[in-house]
């Protein structure tokens, strides 16, 4: 029995890894044979970003069991801290090393913000937590919008007012220019790097779930009072899950920043719309189901683009698909219907599933 369970989780994780790998191979073949439109080519890196965001948010929502609506804020921190670093260090070191460092800096900065925000916020529960994380996400975005940092021979200058009050020397350069953001970030992100980052995120999250710490995190989700009564340090494990989730979102932000030449914090990319969209990926893919979030992120990112031909009806169909998927996944009748189908066609598998999940 024990052995069966071990192989089951391991098998499940393996399927997830293979799925991502096959998707990578398929895209590479399409690219090599030139069967991919330039529009789709432009979507490849964003796809990786969304998958990473969905997977990381699932750690907070599905595994830790807390609803967070500020995920885009962590992405924003990762994007700006890494873009700032890359801009400063452009040309000072080899591109590969610089990007790797930028990645670590972005992830670390987002993780640090995760802890900083998590300490007060994780005392709240449910809706309250969601509202406060939403506010924090907006605060981060708005702070970045009034941030001015410049560099000249005297070192760094910092202001929250405008670029003139930086009082730069003549040859000085404005790096972060408030609402205009950071321009001229090196274009380092590629699809291959994106896939590698997805793999790393998956390894971190899936292995975390199936470890001592992961069990502690899930025990808090299932019953906080019982977890406390058997000696689980609630604060520590909540913060651990929240900050790991934040730093992976930060890494996605790094990818985002290095995929565009101009990085600005708009409601569209780092606002609550984005946070909600990530949450939609997670909810539709199945809360706590990592592979599901990957699939949902891919489908929901591609769908609006594939429907572009239908122009006016595009968003309408998108909304209908969302509702249909939600009904299919969660409505009691649909669930019962799926069970009946399973019973009819795969009676053996069903019995196994009941036993081991």
């Amino acid at each position, binding site marked *: *029995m024990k052995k069966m369970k071990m192989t089951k989780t391991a098998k499940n994780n393996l399927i997830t890894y293979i799925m991502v790998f096959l998707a990578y191979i398929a895209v590479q073949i399409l690219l090599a044979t030139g069967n991919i439109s330039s529009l789709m080519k432009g979507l490849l890196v964003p796809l990786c970003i969304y998958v990473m965001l969905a997977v990381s948010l699932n750690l907070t929502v599905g595994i830790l069991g807390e609803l967070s609506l500020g995920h885009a804020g962590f992405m924003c921190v990762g994007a700006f801290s890494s873009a700032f670093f890359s801009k400063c260090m452009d040309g000072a070191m080899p591109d590969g090393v610089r990007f790797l460092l930028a990645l670590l800096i972005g992830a670390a900065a987002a993780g640090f913000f995760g802890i900083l925000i998590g300490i007060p916020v994780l005392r709240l529960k449910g809706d309250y937590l969601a509202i406060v994380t939403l506010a924090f996400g907006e605060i981060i975005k708005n702070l970045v919008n009034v941030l001015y940092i410049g560099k000249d021979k005297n070192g760094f200058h910092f202001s929250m007012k405008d670029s003139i009050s930086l009082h730069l020397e003549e040859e000085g350069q404005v790096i972060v220019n408030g609402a205009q953001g950071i321009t001229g970030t090196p274009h380092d992100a590629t699809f291959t790097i994106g896939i590698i980052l997805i793999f790393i995120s998956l390894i971190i999250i899936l292995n975390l779930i199936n470890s001592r710490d992961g069990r*502690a995190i899930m025990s808090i989700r299932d019953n906080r009072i019982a*977890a406390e009564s058997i000696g689980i340090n609630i604060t520590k494990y909540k913060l651990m899950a929240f900050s790991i989730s934040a730093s992976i979102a930060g890494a996605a932000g790094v990818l985002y920043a290095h995929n565009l030449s101009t990085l600005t914090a708009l409601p569209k990319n780092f606002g609550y719309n984005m946070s909600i969209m990530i949450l939609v990926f997670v909810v539709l893919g199945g809360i706590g189901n990592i592979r599901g979030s990957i699939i949902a992120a891919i489908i929901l990112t591609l769908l609006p683009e594939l429907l572009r031909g239908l122009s006016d009806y595009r968003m309408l169909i998108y909304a209908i698909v969302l509702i249909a998927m939600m009904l299919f996944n969660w409505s009691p009748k649909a669930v019962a219907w799926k069970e009946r189908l399973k019973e009819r066609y795969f009676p053996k598998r069903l019995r196994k599933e009941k036993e081991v999940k």
Partner: protein
Amino acid sequence: MSLLEVRNLTISFGGLRAVDDFHIDIKKGQLYGLIGPNGAGKTTVFNLLTGVYKPDEGIIKLEGRDITGLKTIDINKAGIARTFQNIRLFKELTVLDNVKVGLHNHYHYSTVEGIFRLPKYYKVEKEMDGRAMELLKVFELDGEAGYLASNLPYGKQRKLEIARALATGPKLLLLDEPAAGMNPNETGELMDTIRFVRDQFDMTILLIEHDMKLVSGICEELTVLNFGRILTQGKTGTVLNDPQVITAYLGE
């Protein structure tokens, strides 16, 4: 020396004195019962002992060490584990994992070792699996190790909760109405299990129970609570025949 020594334990909620001047001495290896009508404050006593509530007054000593006012997790580390009146299992985890969470503070490897699957991860996980299966065997749950906890029948969920509490390696086990919702057969089985746990693990057990058959069958000493105050305390036979106790339960 008593394993658990409680003196003058008092807590009020607003104007209500939920527990008033509670005292108890439990010796090592004893099976001790805490009984009383509904609302007498029995579960509140458990919550005070496990640090869920901070007492207004009084002192709690475990093996002579003052544990009054400690946090729940520190009290668990000091050696008190409990089960709950309304079962609180980790429903989305397997039966095996429920026990392994209980073993959390006794087996260690770092987060990094867990994420990167270093050799220590495999070694420690194997030890944890072994220990958890041993515990499950005691409760005849080893056959269901891979089931989700929520898929277990009620009686087995109760047993799993006891197994999980024992996994934390306590000196004192608190059982809050272990027989609630069980039929006479299951209750009989549970009595055997509780006795077995006491003998096998050399455990001291304090339990709350309404089922008088269970109480008179396994408890050596009793404390009767009524309206937050101790009505009487002593050997089971004497206490249950005390006219005061009968009045408290049945009315005048």
